[in-house]
Each structure stands twice: as structure tokens, then as C-alpha cells.
């Protein structure tokens, strides 16, 4: 019986030592290399799982495909005409900015990254990426997907890998503005369940379907990154601020190829 207690004591002692090593940043490289190793070894495990997912995904989605196709065709038509208008407006904007001597939009260097795995406990809050310190990644770097859609922020960096907080994570708060209208507020993650647009003055007008972009205030995020659109206003007029649910611009569960924005 004595030896049993010794084993338990030893296990907790070892845990304390490991925590100390982790806090002293000695254990970081070990975790980093385990992540890299797992990413490499997992390739033959991931491939058949993807096949299974795609097979069942097609079966479950079959009935929606026709309706989705019609909707997407209409959206493509609408967006094509919108893009044509925006291209012209962009040229005009750039010309006027240079004429007035305004600062042009900043172009940051992008580091492409792939997801190695997700947090086992909360897959909607944190993912591990295959890019780290040696690729120039730093804590606080914004992460986007194609289309300038903001999806997360780098929360932890090791030599070869890094961890990203997804926007729906409870640790996220971003200054955002509404287009059209320009109402300012704060986008917050809802513990992996979604996004909320909060602290919007009652004097401002926000409507369902309005788009939310980063405002650039605070400097952490460049402005004009797309976050999502307002899906429902959940506050009443008697409240001090307006609050709304936000539909993210992309499905955070389908993320694969990401781009880390270096300052």
C-alpha cells in the first residue's frame, strides 16, 4: 500500500516539475516537436478520415445541393455586378487618395499556414498551426482566409508551430464598424458558440444583413478585414447599448489553409 502512495506522490511531483519546466519555457520545444511529429505521422490517418467525411457529407447534403446551387448562382450574378462597380470606385479612391496625399492601405506580408489539429476540448476556440517563430509568426498576429476574412489571432508561438484563438473564442474582442452606416462597436467571441457585436450606441443604426469590418482602432488589426454580418439584433431600446448576433463570414469548422498577417 505504501508503494501505491509513493507512486501517486511521484506522479504529482513529476507534474509539478513539468509545470515548472513549461513556465520556464524549457518544455515548449518538446511540445513543438511532438506537434510537428504528429502532423507528419498523421497523414495516413487523416486521408481515409477525409474520404469518410466527404462520402457521408455528399449523402447528407444531396437534397440541399440543388437549392444551394440556385442560391449561389444568383449570388454570383449579384456579386459580379457589385465587383465591377467596386473596381471602378477603388480606382477612383486610389486616385483621390494620392491626389490628396492620404496614406494608402497598408499591405502586410502573408505567411501561409495549415491547421495541424484542433483543441480536443474546445475545437471551436483554438487550433494549432504549422507555422511558428522561425517563420516570423508572433503573438497577436491576425489570421485571415482568402477574401480578407479575419478568422483568428495568434495566441501562442513555438519554434515550428503556433496556436490560434478562433474569433468565436471567449478571449477575442475586436473593434469593428458596420457597413453601411459606420456604427462602431466591439465584436466578442461567445465561448466557441458564435460572435456578438456589442457596445453600439443607441444613436447608431444597425440592421440585419449589415457587414462588419475591422475598424483598425487599437492597431492590432488592419482595417477593413471582413468579420461577418449582423444576423439578429438582440438588445431592446431600453438598454444602454445595442447588441447583435453576428453570422461569421466563413465557417470556422471548415478552415484549412490560412494566412498569418505579419506587421
Amino acid at each position, binding site marked *: 500500500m505504501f*508503494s*501505491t502512495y509513493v*507512486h*501517486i506522490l511521484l*506522479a*504529482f511531483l*513529476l*507534474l509539478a516539475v*513539468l*509545470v515548472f519546466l*513549461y*513556465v520556464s519555457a524549457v*518544455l515548449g520545444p518538446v*511540445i513543438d516537436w*511532438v*506537434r510537428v511529429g*504528429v502532423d507528419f*505521422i*498523421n497523414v495516413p*490517418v*487523416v486521408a481515409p*478520415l*477525409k474520404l469518410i*467525411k466527404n462520402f457521408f457529407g455528399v449523402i447528407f447534403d444531396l437534397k440541399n445541393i440543388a437549392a444551394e446551387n440556385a442560391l449561389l448562382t444568383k449570388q454570383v450574378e449579384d456579386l459580379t455586378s457589385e465587383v465591377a462597380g467596386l473596381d471602378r470606385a477603388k480606382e477612383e479612391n486610389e486616385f483621390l487618395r494620392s491626389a490628396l496625399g492620404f496614406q494608402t492601405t497598408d499591405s502586410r506580408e502573408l505567411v501561409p499556414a495549415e*491547421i*495541424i*489539429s*484542433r*483543441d*480536443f*476540448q*474546445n*475545437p*471551436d*476556440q*483554438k487550433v*494549432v498551426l504549422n507555422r511558428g517563430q522561425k517563420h516570423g509568426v508572433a503573438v497577436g498576429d491576425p489570421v485571415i482566409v482568402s477574401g480578407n476574412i479575419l478568422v483568428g489571432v495568434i495566441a501562442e508561438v513555438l519554434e515550428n508551430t503556433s*496556436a490560434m484563438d478562433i474569433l468565436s473564442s*471567449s*478571449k477575442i474582442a475586436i473593434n469593428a464598424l458596420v457597413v453601411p452606416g459606420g456604427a462602431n462597436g466591439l465584436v466578442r467571441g461567445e*465561448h*466557441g*458558440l458564435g460572435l456578438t457585436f456589442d457596445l453600439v450606441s443607441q444613436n447608431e443604426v444597425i440592421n440585419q444583413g449589415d457587414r462588419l469590418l475591422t475598424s483598425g482602432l487599437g492597431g492590432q488589426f488592419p482595417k477593413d478585414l471582413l468579420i461577418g454580418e449582423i444576423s439578429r439584433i438582440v438588445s431592446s431600446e431600453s438598454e444602454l447599448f445595442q447588441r447583435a448576433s453576428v453570422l461569421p463570414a466563413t465557417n*470556422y*469548422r*471548415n*478552415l484549412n489553409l490560412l494566412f498569418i498577417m505579419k506587421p
Partner: protein
Amino acid sequence: MNKRSLFFGGLFFLLFLLHSASVKVFASASFVPQFLLLFVIVFAATHSLPETLWFSFGAGFLWETFSAEFFGAQIFALIFCGLGAYLVTRNITAQELAAPTAAFLVVGATVLRPLLVAGYHAVASSLDLTSPIPFGTFLNPGVIYAALANLLVFYLLRFLIRLFPQLSK
């Protein structure tokens, strides 16, 4: 280190690979069974306490690799789950896992683990070692789906152990 320990160590690592690959592919991980937790329970029911303790420790360490919580939370939680499963199968019920006992163990461990992680993380954040995470992050409706998925796979594992009894030796 004997052959048996190597075999179980390899098995734990394979389950870890399967778990991390499943979470990567099926991002909505609520229905992805927690293979490491299940194997810790099966291991605890069929092995000695020191063995259970160290294999739970190892499983926890692997789990830490992709954990968003402060380091050690998963090791701490899995050690307690392993010890709990060991005590339940030795002192309260028969060692042969009856269906209701198995259900109690699996559901209990699935709910207990996030609570232990939350407690550990709360202590770490109160010591300013990390930033706090809201409690709802740990205990949410996803736990119900996880418990169901775990039950399903656990009964499958139990069936396999009966089919290949040498696994429990």
C-alpha cells in the same frame, strides 16, 4: 520496460493519433469519441494502480500537446479519472464491467474531466499563470454528445476485449 508496457504505450499513442486526426477532420468534435479517456478507463479496470497512474499520466501528456488550457490540466484530469475508474471497479463494483457500471464510469469520466480541467485552469489563472476561461467553455451541451459517443465506442471496446481476452492481461 517490458514488452507489455511497450505494447500499451504504442496503443495509447495510436489512439492519440486517431483522436487528433479525427478532431482535425471532423472539426465539430463533440461527437468524436475521446479515445484516450476511454482507454484510461478500460486500462484502470484491468490493471494495477501504479500502472493505471503512469499510463493516465502519459495519456494526459499526449493530450496536452493540443490543449488550449494551462499546461498540466489534462494530465491532472486524466490521473484523477484513471484513479477514479480504478477505485470504482475495485471497491464499489465487481471487476467485470457490467453494462450499467460501464455507463456510469464513461458518463462520469466524460463529465468529471472538463470539471477537473476547469478547476485546474481556475487555480492557474488565480496564480496569474494564465488568463481565465469562462466556465461555460468547459461544461456545455457538447458534453452530452461526447458522453454518447464515448458510450458507443466504450461498448465496442468492451466487446473487443471479450473477443480478445489477452488484451486485458
